């Protein structure tokens, strides 16, 4: 039996505009998401902002009721058996929110230990162990308002592990962390998986998913557009080539023009300090560098390079396929 099962999950939000003549609109945030996560697996959910990652995770951790579809965690339905699900899961999200800033890290953990039903006799020992695990030993009596973002994030992880849950949901846990902090947190996540935890991780960072995840589902506009191992996802675009052109002041409409070229698979633009990087994925048999340069209407061009595709390119290709 799969540890986490999502079967044709849908979630629609109802939003309104206007005050007197209020107009209502339904927004479909998740449209038929299905996947399974096996015991001890680290499953990644990748997607751009607004793709439906957090909505999906919130349905699985019982914070949102699906509009339709079903989901189970360790065989318990997330709507009907919400309490049973909550006993067995830990939830950690990224960012600085989610802590009681006026109180110490220790007070925060003590309160949640009560709420998670950690036996009173075990609380001290468990909290000490977790503080050590996340590297907060010695700082636990300080008010959390003085904690850095990384420390708050590590406190989140400790809180999520208080009741030693078999399943962990990590929603962009490394967002905003400095490189060292993010690396340490990734190491902690890897340790947890080694200890037998089942983990669902959402992230923007391709290298993170590549390094950690056993399988990845790419979600875009509320739908899963690809679902495989990182290796297989890369293989899907490995036959292509990526052309990168540094442009100083990219003309309007360039992306659309390049996208229409024969042999182009995907186009994206990354903002650099004083320039933009035009990244074009092409089919293997075509050479489009000069044609791409021709679409730039004489804009000043810097470095031009060709390289093999990465998982990030696979991701860009997948999420921009239906644009």
């Amino acid at each position, binding site marked *: 039996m799969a540890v986490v099962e999502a079967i044709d999950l849908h979630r629609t*939000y109802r939003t309104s505009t206007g005050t007197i003549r209020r107009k209502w609109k339904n927004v479909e945030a998740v449209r038929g998401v299905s996947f399974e996560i096996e015991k001890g697996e680290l499953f990644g959910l990748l997607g751009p902002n607004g793709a439906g990652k957090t909505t999906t995770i919130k349905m699985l951790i019982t*914070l949102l009721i699906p509009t339709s579809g079903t989901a189970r965690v360790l065989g318990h339905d997330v709507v009907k058996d919400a309490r049973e699900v*909550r006993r067995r899961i830990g939830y950690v999200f990224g960012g600085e*929110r*989610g802590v009681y800033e*006026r109180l110490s890290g220790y007070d925060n953990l*003590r309160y949640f230990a*009560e709420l998670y*039903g950690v036996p009173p006799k075990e609380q001290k020992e468990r909290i000490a162990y977790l503080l050590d695990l996340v590297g907060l030993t010695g700082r636990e009596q300080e008010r959390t308002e003085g904690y850095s973002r990384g420390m708050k994030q590590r406190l989140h992880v400790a*809180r999520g592990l208080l009741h030693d849950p078999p399943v962990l949901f990590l929603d962009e846990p490394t967002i905003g962390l400095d490189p060292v902090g993010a690396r340490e947190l990734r190491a902690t996540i890897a340790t947890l998986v080694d200890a037998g935890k089942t983990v669902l991780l959402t992230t923007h960072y391709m290298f993170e998913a590549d390094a950690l995840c056993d399988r990845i589902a790419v979600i875009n506009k509320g739908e899963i557009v690809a679902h495989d191992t990182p290796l297989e996802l890369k293989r899907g675009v490995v036959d292509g080539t990526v052309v990168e052109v540094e442009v100083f002041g990219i003309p309007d409409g360039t992306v659309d023009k390049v996208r229409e070229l024969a042999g182009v698979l995907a186009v994206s633009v990354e903002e650099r300090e004083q320039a933009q990087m035009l990244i074009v994925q092409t089919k293997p048999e075509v050479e489009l560098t000069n044609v791409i340069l021709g679409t730039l209407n004489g804009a000043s061009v810097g470095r031009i390079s060709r390289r093999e595709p990465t998982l990030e390119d696979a991701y860009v290709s997948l999420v921009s396929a239906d644009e």
Partner: protein
Amino acid sequence: MKTLRLIWMGWLFQFKQMRRSSFDSFLAILWPLFFATVAFFMFRQGGDPDALIYAGLGAAVMGIWTATSVAAGSALQRERWYGTLEILVAAPAHFSLILLPIGLATATIGLYCMVTTLLFGRIAFGIELGIQDPAAFAFAVLATLLSIGALGFLIAVAFARYRNAWALGAVSEYPVWLVCGFLVPLSFLPDWARPISWLLAPTWGMRAIRSAADGGSPWAEIGMCVLLGACYVALGVLVTNRVLRAARARASLALT
């Protein structure tokens, strides 16, 4: 036993958090004093010392209610801002056992207000209460405090469902002063308002406190106060799951 421990630890945590901000604590105590001052000036014009004692006790309970109604709403709103409301809901403990200590902690802050108001009345306006039965008075205050905490809990349940429900706390502040007879005897109210008064535990708490101060027997009123408080808790526990389900369906737990 587990339930009692959870309520106790929750109260301890919430109370610690609420009194951590000295500015908030100062405001919570100062705010009711403005209303008490207005009431004392008005009643002093009548020249009746008994009326001033009536106002002194009324203003003291007003302080508890003000602290609870406003603070219970803002406490839940603060949970939303902190991003902790979702974590609380995702915890396996019954949500009512998380909300009840919030109501009780805000009522405890109200006790500070009560003591300050009584001292303020004594020092600034020379109101000597001369409590006849201190033990009964203490029981009456405790019963009032607990029942107001229970009412705060009931309001907090609504706060969990509606993102803007914190305004309800502020709106309910003044009508409760009136309808529970804190400053004006209930006999002054229109007949249709009486059943509302009877259903509100602070009405009975206020009567019990006045009765104990006068040397009368407050036990029947204390009993009614505790009974109504227990009803609020039972009602809150019963509706919590339904309210929470609605909040999960409408996605109103988060800020966005």
